[in-house]
């Protein structure tokens, strides 16, 4: 599995750290209530197929990436900088 970092080019999987579903970029409002927060923290779509997730280029450029990846084939379809993804870190 190689991830094509927008900064560094294609790099080996071992340079990256996995964070989880990219839903972490859509942090709910602090007052959104327990249901919304429970869903955000614990529940996952967990698809067998394409999914968007957060990876950190740890021993590379130290950028956070949004990676669109197939959990069945491990194919990587798209890699974007999390800082460039709309709504990231808002």
């Amino acid at each position: 599995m190689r991830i094509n970092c927008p900064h560094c080019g294609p790099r080996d999987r071992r340079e990256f750290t996995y964070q989880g579903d990219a839903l972490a970029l859509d942090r709910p409002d602090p007052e959104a209530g327990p249901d919304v927060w429970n869903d955000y923290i614990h529940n996952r779509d967990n698809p067998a197929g394409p999914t968007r997730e957060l990876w950190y280029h740890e021993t590379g450029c130290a950028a956070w990436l949004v990676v669109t990846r197939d959990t069945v084939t491990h194919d990587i379809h798209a890699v974007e900088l999390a800082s460039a993804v709309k709504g990231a870190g808002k």
Partner: protein
Amino acid sequence: MTDLLAKSPCDGLLPLTIGSVTVTEIAFDAITSLAPFKGQESAVSDALKVQMGAAFPKPNRTTGKAHARAVWSGVGQALVLGPPLAPIPGAAMTDQTDAWTCVALEGDGARDVLARLTPLDLRPSVFKQGHAARTEIAHMGGVLMRTGENRYGLMVFRSMAATLVHDLEIAMQSVAARGRL
């Protein structure tokens, strides 16, 4: 006050030559990390040019020359290797002079040695002179640059000096042994 003896990270470990490859330690007068604030990138680059004759490097590149080099070291950040810098307005600067182990790997087989330590594509047409990468060097996060036809600069954190030399030595022995077959 007592004068402490300065000891370089690879003191007693280098230089080392095995087969056609040599590793030597490089000592820089200063290593400074330089991170321009948002919108200050070109002003900071200009100021760097004035101080050491080299621009702020683009991602995966170095600028300047031996002992006055800047190497890209991550998002919005470069390490300036060589001259101590005067403060540059519009940038975060940190003195990291004693934080790094810096070595040069040189010789015909240098690329083969490196190939055993990093998963990077090192072919000369891909990783050209003046190119750099933040990557893994024998599982250590480091900075790698190609500074000559058969010459590479390697940097890892200072505390990892002995591990770096150890891993380089094993890789150099393997490459030399291959060469003798």
